[in-house]
């Protein structure tokens, strides 16, 4: 069965610091991979996605993610976080079957 693991339930960083949120997926092939963000009392917003090509993909608001087949990982990064980046971040995968499988999220708190 497919699964997505986000090992860090909560991450706290200072404003202006760099950020990495970890994501591991399980799938023998190359799945579609996504990062979504959820702000309080809102739905999910797409940050970026990957299927093939350059393993580093750029997203919105300065976010990027790097795909690693050898590590089965798709970590999210940002060079300098802002207080408004405080939210819950979800990694998700799909194997072309339409359904997304989500991790349980990482809650990011940016100290101003």
């Amino acid at each position, binding site marked *: 069965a497919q699964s997505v693991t986000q090992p860090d339930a909560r991450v706290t960083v200072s404003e202006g610091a760099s950020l990495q949120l970890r994501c591991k997926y399980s799938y023998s092939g190359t799945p579609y991979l996504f990062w979504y963000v959820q702000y309080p009392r809102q739905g999910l917003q*797409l940050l970026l996605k990957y299927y093939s090509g350059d393993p580093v993909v750029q997203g919105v608001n300065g976010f990027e993610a790097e795909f690693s087949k050898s590590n089965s990982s798709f970590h999210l990064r940002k060079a300098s976080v802002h207080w408004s980046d405080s939210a819950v971040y979800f990694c998700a995968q799909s194997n072309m079957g*339409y359904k997304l499988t989500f991790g*349980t999220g990482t809650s990011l708190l940016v100290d101003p």
Partner: protein
Amino acid sequence: NSKVIQTPRYLVKGQGQKAKMRCIPEKGHPVVFWYQQNKNNEFKFLINFQNQEVLQQIDMTEKRFSAECPSNSPCSLEIQSSEAGDSALYLCASSQQNSGNTLYFGEGSRLIVV
């Protein structure tokens, strides 16, 4: 701002009451999904449609959940007899065909069963 429109944003129901949520997918997106997000941020896929036809769905053996996407009307998800465990955020998403499975989500309908 989300182009997938979900109503209502909040609904409070007593146990045993019916709960109905609606979703208007993004224009031009024929595929619609319903997910349930619980308080532990666990997502449960419920059902998806392509146009009006069901593509995949969970085993709704309890038969309390039903969903439809009629033509020229909002899609809907209905819980016939709400239970406390149904309290969750219900997310609707839509997708283009052959879009790399990118789902675009609405703001969600938060159901509280008291």
